[in-house]
């Protein structure tokens, strides 16, 4: 580690320095109970200004979508409109208590009800639950619903979930957590699910399939109709991993394609902050036959003799709660505001621009980097970060991009492309930014040939140089000081 090392608050500490000077007490003093006192607390002693400068300096080392281009594939790091932050901070939203009587929070329930309806409309589903807190949580929820559906039919022999080898790693993890066995399906030469493998795997032990469309190669699944038909024909359900919905929103509806259940990532598609910037939200949409199994409570609207009102209710055969209260409500507000601002036409245009930007980058970069599945892609694409004959690998290219002021793409995923760089520009980036990124990538490819050591030793311009990931993983140190230095 070299360069601008920032001292820790402990290193800045000066004995007897205070952040706040309290007035002398004007009431009798009582000694604190001795059993509650510790001599070894060792808290840092700093002034307010020390503290403010320290944390401001740390915050300035951060890199976010507000500081620069962030093409982290599969993460949809699009701009989070600031007006949505203002809306989410309105006291009626931010200060409502989850235990308030429903008649005192009708507006908030109305927002949730409309968001449920809009997501159902966007995804082509019969019902939506806003409960799950993130994408993988949505997957787990959908799988519990899948199991509940089969069990409700008295069918207890379905234990297997089919998962393509291009899936997000969370799919097999959620499957295992839900008590199913994951069965991996290979991809074919065009990056689609191998149809013959689906045919062979389909039998009456298949509970369902998890499909990401577009898949993690950024490719539209060309056999989607055939795959859905095969799985449904053997009695299985179709789960949609909605992580890549930013390519389809407003254009195609997974429900129309035959998906039974799917999670939305509000923090990707509907621009709520994420990546260390805020909690996620993974609402789940369900087809007519799965709707009653949704987790609850969901918001219902009633109009009768007493008037119109919104209430929280459990679906009939609900798998129960999967989160406390109403999920991450603040995220629901932001997503609601986003959908409201863009409308049907705007959402479609966002998807079109996301796809256009990703294809622009693929075509501009395919001479400098190998693109193993070089066909029209959706909102992202995957190239190889290995530069032949130079020893430069995806990790080196990623680190060198930091010197050029860009966040690296996702690397080493999907696993089916060795040395993968997965690039997702999103629709919120303008052409000059994309061109600057292309220029940086081309410059790095040239550097790799002319001076590979420069790339292999990157980054050079960042506050810290290349970190030893192996050492970090092998020797977990979770305190800011080595044990021997502690008192």
């Amino acid at each position, binding site marked *: 580690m070299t360069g601008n090392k920032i001292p820790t608050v402990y290193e800045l500490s000066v004995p007897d320095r205070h952040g706040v000077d309290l007035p002398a007490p004007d009431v009798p003093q009582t000694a604190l109970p001795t059993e509650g006192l510790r001599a070894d607390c060792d808290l840092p002693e700093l002034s307010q200004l020390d503290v403010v400068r320290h944390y401001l300096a740390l915050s300035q080392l951060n890199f976010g979508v507000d500081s620069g281009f962030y093409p982290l594939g599969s993460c949809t790091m699009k701009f989070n409109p600031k007006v949505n932050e203002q809306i989410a901070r309105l006291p009626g939203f931010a200060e409502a208590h989850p235990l308030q009587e429903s008649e005192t929070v009708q507006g908030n329930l109305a927002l949730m009800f409309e968001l449920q309806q809009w997501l159902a409309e966007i995804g082509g589903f019969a019902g939506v639950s806003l409960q799950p807190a993130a994408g993988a949580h949505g997957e787990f929820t959908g799988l519990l619903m899948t199991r509940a559906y089969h069990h409700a039919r008295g069918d207890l022999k379905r234990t297997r979930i089919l998962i393509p080898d291009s899936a997000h790693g969370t799919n097999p993890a959620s499957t295992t957590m839900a008590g199913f066995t994951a069965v991996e399906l290979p991809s074919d030469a065009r990056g689609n699910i191998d149809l013959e493998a689906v045919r062979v795997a389909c039998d009456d032990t298949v509970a369902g399939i998890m499909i990401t469309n577009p898949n993690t190669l950024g490719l539209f699944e060309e056999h989607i109709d055939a795959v859905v038909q095969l799985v449904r024909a053997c009695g299985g359900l179709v789960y949609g991993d909605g992580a890549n919905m930013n390519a389809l929103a407003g254009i195609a509806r997974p429900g129309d394609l035959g998906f039974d259940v799917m999670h939305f990532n509000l923090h990707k598609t509907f621009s709520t902050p994420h990546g260390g910037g805020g909690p996620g939200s993974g609402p789940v949409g369900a087809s007519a036959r799965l709707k009653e199994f949704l987790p609850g409570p969901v918001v219902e609207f009633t109009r009768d003799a007493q008037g119109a009102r919104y209430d929280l209710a459990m679906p009939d055969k609900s798998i129960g709660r999967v989160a406390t209260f109403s999920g991450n409500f603040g995220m629901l507000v932001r997503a609601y505001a986003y959908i409201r601002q863009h409308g049907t036409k705007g959402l479609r245009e966002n998807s079109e621009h996301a796809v256009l930007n990703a294809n622009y980058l693929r075509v501009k970069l395919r001479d400098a980097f190998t693109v193993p599945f070089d066909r029209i892609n959706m909102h992202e694409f995957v190239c190889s970060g290995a530069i032949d004959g130079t020893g430069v690998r995806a990790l080196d290219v990623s680190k060198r991009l930091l010197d050029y002021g860009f966040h690296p793409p996702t690397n080493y995923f999907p*696993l089916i492309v060795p040395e993968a760089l997965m690039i997702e520009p999103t629709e919120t980036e303008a052409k000059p930014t994309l061109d600057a990124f292309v220029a940086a990538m081309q410059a790095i490819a040239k550097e790799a040939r002319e001076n590979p050591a420069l790339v292999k030793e990157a980054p050079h311009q960042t506050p810290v140089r290349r970190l030893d*990931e*192996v050492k970090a993983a092998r020797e977990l140190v979770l305190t800011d000081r080595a044990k021997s230095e502690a008192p």
Partner: protein
Amino acid sequence: MLKYTNDHEWLRMDGDVATIGITPFAQEKLGDLVFVELPGVGMKLSKGTVAATVESVKAASDVYAPVSGDVLAVNEKLTGEPGLVNADPTGDGWLFKMKLADVAELDTLLDERAYSALTTSH
């Protein structure tokens, strides 16, 4: 003499005990290992089922039982020093030992030449 699988495990027979690990090719592709999860001693494994997991900073990969049988011992050293697999994959970096259920299963494994052909085609 080592025998191999298509999934890059090796197996060495010593009497009726098989020692199993991952090949130099596999450790090279994975990069520096940071974690190794081993099977429990006494576990019954059938050929092709997941026996262990090796994790590098790039990816976690399953290690499959090359043959069926009971786990007799595991390489406890790897818990503290997963890097042994990188340093000496066919020696100190062995993963576990098995007592074979069916010696005939050894015939299903690849010899040195066949495995070498498999890795050069990659």
